């Protein structure tokens, strides 16, 4: 096992910068979720760690050793491709055994290790099949078994679950996490599904237009997004813009919102509020406590989702969003005038 260090890496395709000065430490044995919109450079970064592509600037090290001169086949990586890339001319067994046989592992040991990998991904009895005779989920597990059977230092996963339907996907997420924990391998997982990234990763990095926007443990990024992009890309957020005065933001209509930290004074800035932190009261309700922000709004839409209710609200022509638990109280009607309350603690200043 080994940690992966990416330091100041840039990659240009013509004049277009696919990656620009990206530095990330992927901790040893950790599960790192690489998140970002389409075209943000996730695959490009992964391919450079694998050795299929090379940075125009910066350095990549695996296990403390610079890999600039190390060809793909000597980097000891395992990779699962988005389309699985199983060898169609080989059986499931031969697919998984491929990495061992090219390394000259003895026949008997190969058989044992393949068997173990097959058990790990719960594919026993399918060894003789060809890839085209497998379901999508089975193919994905073969790809995973093939990638880990060689005991690589690093496991690279490029949106491996994106082709699966929802229920299979959740099952595979749990499976993948179990296998990763069992083997204890440094894993870098590319996805553009924020929920997948949040539930599976120990750490998350958000890429945007080839730059690292923010990085940290999932809860930290979710609770403390550093930018409007991070706030809206990872989870839902209501954004309020205004001018700064200490830790207060004056909105255009004169309302003051108190943030939990001070902002650089005098500038225009924004703050974010997660929809689940907003409480809705009927306007006639009790007066709010001191450490609260409040806004008047009108409910425009109510979306029932079983365990929760999503309200879309109109404030000053802007649409806000609030989640309420389905606790059995009478829900608010569409068109009702209400007051929104939330704690100063939940008001996140954005630079």
């Amino acid at each position, binding site marked *: 096992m080994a940690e992966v260090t990416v330091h100041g890496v840039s990659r240009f395709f013509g004049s277009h910068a696919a990656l620009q000065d990206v530095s990330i430490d992927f901790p040893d044995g950790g599960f790192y979720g690489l998140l970002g919109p389409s075209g943000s450079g996730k695959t490009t970064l992964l391919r450079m760690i*694998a050795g*299929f592509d090379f940075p125009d600037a910066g350095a990549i090290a695996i296990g403390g050793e610079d890999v600039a001169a190390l060809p*793909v*086949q*000597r*980097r*000891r*990586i*395992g*990779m699962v*491709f*988005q*389309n699985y*890339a*199983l*060898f*169609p*001319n080989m059986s499931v067994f031969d697919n998984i055994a*491929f*990495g061992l046989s*090219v*390394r000259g592992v003895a026949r008997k040991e190969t058989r044992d290790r393949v068997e173990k990998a097959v058990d790990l991904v719960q594919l026993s009895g399918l060894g003789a099949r060809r890839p085209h005779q497998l379901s999508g989920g089975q193919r994905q597990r073969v790809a995973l078994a*093939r*990638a880990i059977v*060689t005991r690589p230092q690093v496991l690279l996963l490029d949106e491996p679950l994106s082709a699966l339907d929802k229920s299979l996907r959740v099952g595979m997420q749990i499976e993948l996490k179990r296998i990763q924990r069992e083997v204890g391998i440094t894993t870098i997982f590319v996805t553009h599904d924020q929920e997948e990234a949040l539930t599976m990763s120990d750490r998350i990095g958000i890429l945007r237009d080839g730059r690292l926007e923010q990085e940290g443990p999932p809860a930290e990024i979710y609770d403390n997004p550093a930018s409007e992009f991070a706030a809206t890309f990872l989870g839902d957020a209501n954004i309020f813009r205004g001018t700064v005065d200490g830790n207060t933001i004056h909105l255009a209509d004169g309302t003051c919102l108190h943030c939990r930290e001070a902002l650089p004074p005098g500038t225009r800035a924004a703050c974010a509020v997660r929809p689940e932190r907003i409480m809705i009261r009927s306007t006639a309700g009790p007066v709010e406590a001191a450490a609260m922000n409040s806004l008047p709004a009108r409910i425009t839409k109510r979306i029932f989702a079983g365990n929760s209710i999503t309200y879309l609200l109109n404030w000053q022509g802007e649409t806000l969003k609030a989640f309420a638990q389905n606790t059995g109280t009478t829900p608010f009607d569409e068109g009702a005038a209400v007051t929104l309350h939330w704690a100063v603690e939940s008001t996140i200043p954005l630079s």
Partner: protein
Amino acid sequence: MTAAPPPGAQHSQLRPALPLLLPAYLWLTLAIFLPLSAMVFFSFMTDLPLADRSWAMTLGNYAAFFETDLYGRLLLRSLRLGLEVTLYCVLIGFPCAYVLAKVLKGRSREAIFLLVILPFWSNGLVRIFSWAIFLRGGGVIDSALNAVLPFEVSVDLMYSYPAVIIGLVHSYLPYMVLTCYLTLQAIDDSLIEAARSLGASRLTVLRRLIVPLAMPGLIAGAVLIFVPVVGSFMEPRILGGRSGTFYGTVIEDQFVAVFNWPLGAALSFILLAVVLAVLALAAPVLRRQT
């Protein structure tokens, strides 16, 4: 378990296709089956059924093949020629197709592709005679080499076995390049990357992945080349001169020079049978490869 197709399912699929297939079958009947059956008929005759000649049915034309060892030797020589030309086409055509399909991109690919299929567009005779200019002593190659080298050399390949090989390889190479190109292009790049990430060197990837996946193209190309080369007569005659006597030229002689169509037809059918037998023998081996 998938359900077995209901009886007659194949029929019901065939019937709507029948009007579409009819022209093809009609054409096949007219263009191949009729002349071929005429030839079969000829091959059992003592002489051409012309007005002033009498003829009878005979097996003599086939027997002639076995009466001297000349035809057998020439047939072996032609089979060897077919194998050699096919081999050279594989050795040159496969790497060429690989570069076209996997290395070159965009404009340069189009340009090289054009160069490869250019022989297809030129007349066969023109092609062969232009080789003659190159290969003969005091020809282009000869003069060019002597202009560069300090010592005198004489490259006279004209009227030799190598000249025949060069001419045939040039004529038939595009088949191999095209069939291999098609199968190679269908191989997903991520397969190659996956193999490399699993620790395979470029050579191992070629041996274990690319060649097996390209095998259908290699086989198709080999068959497309081997079969006509075994019966070829134009290249051997023009470029081979006196050493250009092959089974194909003998058949041509029967039709064009000696005017013994029955013997020519019989020799042709023996060739057809031998080629089919060779392909049938090779089939299990080739099938195992894919």
